[in-house]
């Protein structure tokens, strides 16, 4: 039962960033927080409450799965998360959507720019 990912677009910024972080590799919660901070250049800092709340909702949608604890990890309380196939699909759809937005924005802004610089006829 593959839901059309486009139904869920646009994603909330938090969900987008979480999925993006997990796209690279499996991570535990704290690492996701750090990755999000890094990706946004320190501008978007997510607290654990928000993180796990979103993670749970992503897991309900089956875009993320819980891998459980890893043996030998320095902190045994940590649990790792992985992006599922459908999660990856949603992320790709969202990326494509955003790319389209950026394209559109660029073309519009460029077309208006020359008129700004048009010399005025006296």
């Amino acid at each position, binding site marked *: 039962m593959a839901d059309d990912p486009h139904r869920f677009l646009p994603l909330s910024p938090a969900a987008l960033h979480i999925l993006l972080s997990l796209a690279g590799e499996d991570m535990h919660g*704290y690492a996701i927080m750090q990755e999000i901070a890094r990706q946004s250049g320190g501008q978007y800092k997510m607290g*654990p*409450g*928000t993180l796990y*709340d979103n993670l749970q909702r992503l897991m309900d949608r089956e875009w993320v*799965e819980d891998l459980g604890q890893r043996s030998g990890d320095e*902190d045994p309380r*940590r649990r790792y998360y992985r992006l599922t196939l459908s999660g990856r699909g949603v992320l790709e759809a969202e990326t494509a959507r955003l790319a389209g937005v950026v394209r559109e924005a660029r073309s519009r802004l460029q077309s208006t720019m020359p008129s700004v610089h048009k010399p005025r006829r006296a």
Partner: protein
Amino acid sequence: MLRHLYRCALRLHPRGFRRRFGDEMLSIFDHEQGRLAAFRLLLDGLVSLTRQWALRQEFWGELPPNQALQPTPIGVPSFSTIDPFRPRSAAVVPGALLSIALFCATCFAIRYSWIHVLHVHIPEVQFERSKWVPPSSDVGTSSREDSVSPITKGQSSPTISITSHSPLAQQPVAPAVATGQARGTPVSKKSRVESMAPSQTMPATSTAIAKSLIGAEQRSAAADAPLDAAEREQVIQGAIRNLRRYYIDPAISQTMAQSLTKHAENGDDDEATDGETFAKLLTMQLRAVSHDRHLSVIYNQSAIPEGVTGPTPEAIARYRQEMERTNCTLEKVETLPHNVGYLKLNSFPDLQLCQPKIAAAMASLNDADAIIFDLRDNHGGSPGMVAFVASYLFDHPTHLDDFYNRSENSTLQSWTLSPIQGSKLADKPVLVLTSAETFSGAEEFAYDLKMLKRAILVGERTAGGAHMVRHRRINEHFSIGVPDTRPINPVSRSNWEGTGVTPDVSVRAPEALRTAESLAEKLLQK
């Protein structure tokens, strides 16, 4: 410490969320360095707590671990249950807010609106009350009524002349009238102190006599010749002169003078082209400064004669009619259950005219075990009548009040003429009912008895008018009522001007009678 708090916050989360993520969140807390980070995490924890309880109802229960889906083995029936209905979690918060709001609204409505409807007061039979309109043509008279009730002074000499009355001795308890007795101390050079027995002319024929007369005249006034600025100026100057000379508070009369002049300069008076409007306008301006409801400027259609003291014969006749019509403003006299006497008096009428009626009323209540004076609709009147009624309540002459006249620097004492022969009320409990309408002479009655601890006041705080007014002519059509005398109670060395008389038992006026009755009952049971 902060870690402990964070753990508490985590423990307060819904069970499912706590079980699922509690450890992870705590591990993150342990990883973060620094106090600032810890505080931020704590704040985040509190926000998360709120969010989980308010908006994530679906997370309250156990959360599935949600690991990779197990495929159902073949041959084993697999049931997909339809989710039971759950209200949207997003509806919880607004639903709760709405419930709280409705609950508060209901409590508020119960507390403030309907209680008043339930206590419907069924009014007793009311006699038609006369509304007195301030007179204008009386000069050189003094009173203490709602606005102006002149009292004759006999001659225009500063002292109150003491004349005798024919005692109206038809009633068994009619007082032995003292004639021409001055109780005061010998006259000194600086000030003159005279006392006044209730049979004086001080409260004489004029209380409200001229009032009703002038009222009628004003009512029947046709359109007058329009006022011009010159006459307005003359009236203002006349008013200022009288205020400066006679008003009890020189500082306030100065302020009033300035205010009148200023209004005239600003052109505020220009619209008042007829006498009545102008008089009302000036009255308003004066009262705005002084807050003294005894001050008034009065316009009289017919010419005010010069040098006349006391009310005109027509004024006297009209007042007499009014008193006959209203039974000397005795609205009700009866005996309530438990033998409590009740007397509702709506003014303190002129003593000479109404002494028999009032004496008869007091005689009819002579056997009561307690007495309630209902002054809730009493706007004052004659100080002599006040003293007369109070005389029934003492068995020896009692000093009620002093009346101090600033311009003459003289003081008049008011004493009761106790004991009243045959009266049995001198040692009975007395209750006085007051309302916010109780004014002037009625306030004196209540205040004096309160200071003497002779009565219990039940009701509302009274209107606060203590000054006694004398009317003086300004010109042919205008006169001004200037309070020139104020009472100074011998016990408190003060009076109730502005503040009103505070009741001993504070209840709303409609409930005062009921309260007084039960209070009287309690007093009598002891």
